[in-house]
């Protein structure tokens, strides 16, 4: 259904492949059709419904001397496409004048596949007016639970269809459906704080899915209560502390601290590489800690094929404390010494794909159980969990970082930061709320500091990764909670 247009482009694809053959060039052709919509509700009324369509194709050529160039255009007409190919090849010929080193690609298995996940018909049925009414109902329900705040609800839908054809015979096409239901609450006093929450799913029907809605309402209520409480909360002193982080922050830690440094396009400078080669086998964390990246079906960041048309593999970046797999694409894998994991993704047909994460998680061997749903755990329940497992006997006071609000890393130095939505100090008989503060440190210090995990894996923490100016969906998680021992290289900001 959503691949019809791209599949109908066989004549264009064939003509481009033939021209590449005649001109002795290697071709990767990427066609994309993406349809997005967003319904936004504030104070019970629809404030905005915006839609966009973005379609076109990108022609990545490598000439016989290894010169490369990428040309793109936002239509699918045959003649302009061939003209674009010629411009790209001409530009590739200029590359050596700018000191561009040659780069060749070979030996890829020519995968041929079509993949459309089930449930896409829900996007055809999607009715923005009805969605607006439903969002207003949910807003009213949240206001009843946590009154006195200014709230915003938005539903975003995104159907992202791709086809990648290579001159070596590869031809894959797939559709990535994504929906996100977001909430934000702002306090109304003189000092205002804003706190957000979200749930995601592969279908706009999530608005009618009782389980998703219940999770959303629980998270939104928590965010609203936090927005109301933060103006009166003090700042937490800066320093190194015993920490508990939730699964969303653990996703941030995995993504910022390790994921980016394991992306093979940066191995000339990454701290996880030496002389451009991945430091596979090196010990980088505690032996009970692993970091895994893989596309998860139905997930916000699911992508079954790479933007070079290679099936995306599971990558065990850290296997029980040791570096194992890197996130590689066909260009970087041979130089990196790591196996090809098909990790390249692109924001659009206009840009060159880069190795990057999909759903990344931290797994702890022997994690302790935690009963019930994650949303059942407020700071008191977290304290009980820590008390019953002896953590509070080891550390009379533990700093609990709750909720992820984005992060950043410098893969060259290994310095990472991410921010939380709230800080609680948990001690015997007392719980105190503090304003959020930056959590920063060195990736090695952080991974060695992880001591315990609680609860099952929860992988639905979502975000947007902005590497090299390209935004793509990201996701991940961990066990409900991780405990980190104090480490001098892992610090909480603050005052």
């Amino acid at each position: 259904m959503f691949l019809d247009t791209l599949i109908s482009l066989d004549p264009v694809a064939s003509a481009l492949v033939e021209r590449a053959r005649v001109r002795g060039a290697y071709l990767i052709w990427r066609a994309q059709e993406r349809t997005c919509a967003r319904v936004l509700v504030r104070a019970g009324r629809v404030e905005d419904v915006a839609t966009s369509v973005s379609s076109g194709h990108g022609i990545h050529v490598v000439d016989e001397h290894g010169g490369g160039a990428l040309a793109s255009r936002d239509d699918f007409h045959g003649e302009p496409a061939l003209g674009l190919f010629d411009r790209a090849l001409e530009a590739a010929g200029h590359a050596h004048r700018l000191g561009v080193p040659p780069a060749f690609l070979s030996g890829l298995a020519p995968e041929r596949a079509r993949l459309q996940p089930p449930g896409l018909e829900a996007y055809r049925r999607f009715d923005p007016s009805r969605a607006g009414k439903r969002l207003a109902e949910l807003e009213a329900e949240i206001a009843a639970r946590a009154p006195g705040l200014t709230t915003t609800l938005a539903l975003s839908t995104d159907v992202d269809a791709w086809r990648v054809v290579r001159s070596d015979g590869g031809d894959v096409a797939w559709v990535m459906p994504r929906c996100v239901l977001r909430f934000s609450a702002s306090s109304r006093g003189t000092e205002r704080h804003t706190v957000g929450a979200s749930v995601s799913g592969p279908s706009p029907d999530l608005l009618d899915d009782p389980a998703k809605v219940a999770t959303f309402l629980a998270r939104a209520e928590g965010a609203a209560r936090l927005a109301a409480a933060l103006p009166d909360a003090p700042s937490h002193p800066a320093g190194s502390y015993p920490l508990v982080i939730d699964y969303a922050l653990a996703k941030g830690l995995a993504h910022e601290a390790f994921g980016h440094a394991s992306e093979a396009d940066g191995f000339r400078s990454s701290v996880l590489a030496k002389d451009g080669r991945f430091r596979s086998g090196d010990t980088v964390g505690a032996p009970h800690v692993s970091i895994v990246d893989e596309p998860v079906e139905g997930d916000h960041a699911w992508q079954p094929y790479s933007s070079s048309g290679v099936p995306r593999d599971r990558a065990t970046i850290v296997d029980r404390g040791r570096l194992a797999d890197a996130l590689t694409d066909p260009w970087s894998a041979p130089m990196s010494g790591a196996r090809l994991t098909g990790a390249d993704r692109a924001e659009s047909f206009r840009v060159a794909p880069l190795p990057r994460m999909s759903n990344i998680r931290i797994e702890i061997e022997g994690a302790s159980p935690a009963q019930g749903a994650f949303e059942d755990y407020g700071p008191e329940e977290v304290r009980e969990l820590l008390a019953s497992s002896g953590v509070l006997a080891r550390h009379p006071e533990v700093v609990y970082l709750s909720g992820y609000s984005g992060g950043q890393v410098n893969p060259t130095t290994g310095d990472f930061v991410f921010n939380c939505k709230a800080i609680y100090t948990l001690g015997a008989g007392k719980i105190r709320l503090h304003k959020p503060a930056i959590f920063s440190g060195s990736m090695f210090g952080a991974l060695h500091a992880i001591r315990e995990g609680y609860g099952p894996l929860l992988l639905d923490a979502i975000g947007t990764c902005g590497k090299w100016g390209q935004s793509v969906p990201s996701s991940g998680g961990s066990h409900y909670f991780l405990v980190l021992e104090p480490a001098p290289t892992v610090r909480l900001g603050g005052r």
Partner: protein
Amino acid sequence: MDLAALVFALTGAREDGCFVDAWSIAATEARRLTLGTKDARTGSPHAPLALSESLAARYKIVWSDGRISRGVLDRRQIEQDVAIALREARVTSYEDPDAKIVLGPAAFPDVAVFDAAVDEIAGGAVEPLAPRLAAIRARVAAHGFRTWSGSLQAARATARVLTSQGLDVETLGTSWSWHATFDGEIGAGISRRSPDDEASFLARLDRAIAVALALREDASKRPGGLVPVLFHPDVVEELFIAALLHNLDGAAVAHGTGAFRREQFDAREPVLREDLTLRHDPLVPLAAGAYRFTQEGLPARAVTYVVGGRLVSPLLDTKYARRLALTPTPSPSAMDTVFLEGPEPRSYEAAAAEAAGGALVLGVLGVHTQDFTSGDFSMSAPQTLALGDGGRFGGRLRATISGNLFAILRSPALRLVAFPGEHTPGILALCHLDPV
């Protein structure tokens, strides 16, 4: 730019028994050339020489039953599938009485936004890029940087706004930008409508290299606390001005999701220190943020947002101008047309000397994770230089900084600082800094 099919379809559209009562289109047709360098490899497969052609149109439709449709069409829809696109637009229509305004003809100011040399590069002439790359590579080699990354970009774009009220205005502009980052640490760059001259380019590059070299030495250990911090103009733009603009957004003011309330505009109570002004002037010739008209067809003009520390106007499109009963304003599209002003800025040298014992914060990690509504910030500042006697660099501090942006902008201790070659002033203020 041929929009005839789209205009024809709009004027004749009938959906659900409704016709199009009014419409506006803001279309852009662009051609762009980009050359990246990633990990010292120029034009690598991850940062290739890239050429792109695009046409997109942002539209607003006011239907005869008063409903509104908004969206973005791509070239294929504009040229081939416009009937389908309009049918889908009707399906997504919604009630919004404040969004019904469609502008008519007006007098549009002239401002230089086109440069022939950039136009040539955007068309594929890569030769002018070679000397720039050579200069960067020579400095990388001379100073022993392990790696560098960056990009050079040139584009030409025709922007056109048409409305059912008879407005039809078009302009041809160019854009030029470059940036280079050394050892993944610190960099330099600029965006303009025309190329910076060679002397300015080299001077900017050399200033960045000087601080990159200074970052190689570690500072001696020092305690944390409230110290004089000199924020580089890049940090001022990214943090202070971005936070102000975020909270000045008309939607945030109207809905109460920002720091500023409607009643604070034109009130006597200052929100910033009483000698600070924030204004925007899109009529600066060849600035990256220069333009003649907005996407709604509003003529460009200078706007003051804050004067004497008091709020004057939010950033207002026609919808939120009507909602707040204020006049619509053009909005900034780049920082080089935004002016943070106050008392005569101190020279960099004087300010650095005044900040002795404190630090120069050149870059921060995690700006996008901050809550701009509260103004509270807590960030990592890995590119920070200790400042010693006379303002001399005292080595690198890895630090976290924290505080409240509004408190700093209200502080009597705040000083604006003129940095060589920078449009935006730096800020010298007392700030909590904790070396790691």
